[in-house]
């Protein structure tokens, strides 16, 4: 038996080695680095140096506020939209279902830089299609990238566009696993389609919705591409700087690895905490 286990571990060894060097060690090491002052030569152990700075850093709180704001507004909107899309995709009335399924999923496949460039163009002040549309219905054009609120809106719209379809496909799989005869029983019980949605579909879909929400929370906590590329490094004036962007700025612009590590651990901790709260709030009653 022991010999058999040893053989198994020998086969696993190449993977475990790579995993240890490139995953496990960086995770441990960054935790250790977060307790070191890394802008002195040599680095020195200073447990409160980075963590102390974090607590009093307005840039950190600004990034935290921005990240949570996006989380609180964008994730519920996106999940709601994804549920609506999934229900529409699941409708027996829909023709060319495969085409729509692909179309909704396609944004995930598009390269991040390309999609960011397109969004920058679409929301351009002078010749973006969005302002042209606003003008055409008699509304004034908006300077999307010079003010914080519209810039935040652009990020939320972009993230929603990119990920709503992805979540819709996951939710669609959940919808399709709900047996049809449950709906037939409800139809015989004179339960309207709308009530069937709220009293049968949503409760039965809950585990999948929670799964999508947790994935989205983790994704949003790490949000980087959109504020980096669409609103040009968290502009205007740090108004859309997220925790991910702050981490990048500290770690790779200022080469302050200790502080960046502390930010990274804060992000991970927050994602875990929020996900746990989410799971606890939506747990199955005994």
């Amino acid at each position, binding site marked *: 038996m022991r010999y058999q286990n040893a053989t198994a571990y020998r086969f696993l060894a190449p993977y475990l080695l790579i995993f240890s060097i490139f995953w496990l060690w960086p995770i441990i090491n960054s935790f250790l680095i977060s307790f070191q002052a890394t802008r002195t030569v040599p680095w020195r152990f200073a447990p409160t140096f980075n963590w102390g700075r974090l607590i009093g850093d307005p840039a950190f709180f600004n990034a935290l506020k921005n990240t949570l704001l996006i989380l609180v507004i964008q994730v519920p909107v996106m999940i709601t939209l994804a549920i609506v899309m999934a229900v529409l995709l699941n409708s027996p009335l829909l023709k060319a279902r495969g085409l729509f399924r692909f179309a909704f999923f396609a944004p995930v496949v598009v390269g991040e830089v390309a999609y960011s460039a397109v969004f920058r163009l679409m929301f351009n002040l002078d010749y973006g299609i969005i302002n042209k549309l606003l003008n055409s219905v008699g509304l004034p054009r908006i300077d999307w990238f010079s003010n914080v609120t519209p810039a935040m809106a652009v990020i939320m719209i972009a993230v929603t566009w990119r990920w709503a379809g992805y979540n819709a496909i996951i939710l669609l799989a959940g919808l399709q696993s709900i047996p049809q005869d449950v709906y*037939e029983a409800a*139809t*015989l019980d004179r*339960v309207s389609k709308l*009530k069937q949605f709220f009293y049968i579909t949503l409760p039965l879909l*809950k585990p999948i919705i929670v799964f999508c929400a947790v994935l989205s929370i983790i994704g949003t906590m790490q949000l980087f591409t959109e504020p980096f590329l669409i609103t040009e490094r968290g502009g205007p004036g740090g108004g859309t700087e997220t925790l991910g962007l702050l981490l990048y700025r500290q770690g790779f612009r200022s080469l302050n690895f200790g502080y960046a590590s502390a930010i990274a651990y804060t992000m991970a901790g927050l994602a875990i905490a929020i996900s746990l709260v989410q799971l606890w709030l939506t747990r199955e009653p005994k």
Partner: protein
Amino acid sequence: MAAVTLKNVVKRFGVFEIVHGANIDVEDGEFVVFVGPSGCGKSTLLRMIAGLEDISGGEIAIGGKVVNNVEPADRGIAMVFQSYALYPHMSVEQNLSFGLRMNGNPKADTERRVKRASEILRIAELMKRRPRQLSGGQRQRVAIGRAIVREPQVFLFDEPLSNLDAELRVQMRVEISRLHKELGVTMIYVTHDQTEAMTLADRIVVLNAGNIEQIGAPLDLYDDPANRFVAGFVGSPKMNFLAAQVVGNDGNATLLELANHGGARLQKPLSGAPPAVGAEVVLGVRPEHFFEAGEGDCDIAVKADVAEHLGSVSYVYANAGAAPGANAGPEELIIEREASRQRATGDHMVVSIKAGQSLLFDKSGARIR
């Protein structure tokens, strides 16, 4: 309570016609079973009565009112599904009351109906449980309970027992029979199991490939089937079919020669016109209608292949037409023997057929009376 009438009911899926003009009259308070092999259209017929499938042609009336364009919920029916179709996220109590609550039924009345259903089905102690915490039989009871609280005029059952084990099936069969007596409501029940049909039904509708083969009381179908399909489908073990040829006609009797039994002949009296001499026919004999050699009108020799001993009776699976020393014949016969007369495997035996306890069919399967 209500009668259910089907007039020339047709169902098509695209170009495929599944049900070809069904005519059925279910009387008020009657228990009617639709039975037939898989794909015969029996479930489709039931779902059309429920309103879950559109009717492609013909007319369905419940309680004298044509319901072709009436919503399922307004037809006065309740349905029990094969898979139970319970709401998995609701307790038993919520499952029972869901429909009533959603329709704003007064709370006191809802409670009364749920209580009554739980008492009828003896599920009062399960009310707080979720469906996944119930056994198959308990789930089926809850599904029936959900139908009861609707206080329908007609109960529809779609193969309700096919997901249960053999013992539970017998138990639930008795319960459904009891329920019918207690409620006195019209019930239409779909099954592929002819035993269920025989034990539950006031009348059976035998379906085959979208056609109604015969409608009648269980024993009428057993004793007097309209054709070879019904004769073969009703009864367990199945009726034996022996190939034969008409070799002569004498007044009201026809003389048959059994093709696989070395020229054994049987004089079979008929009430109608006998088939032409030389016609190929099929003689149907139920397993219990084989007698000891010399007791009947025609003796045949068979070789016992396998014997199933059930205690009170034994079923001998025998190869017909195999004289001692010969190879196995082309026809396998199932012969019922009393336990005391059981044969060992490999035995040669001679059994006897009585003309009065056999049925004659022409080549197309139609009955020759």
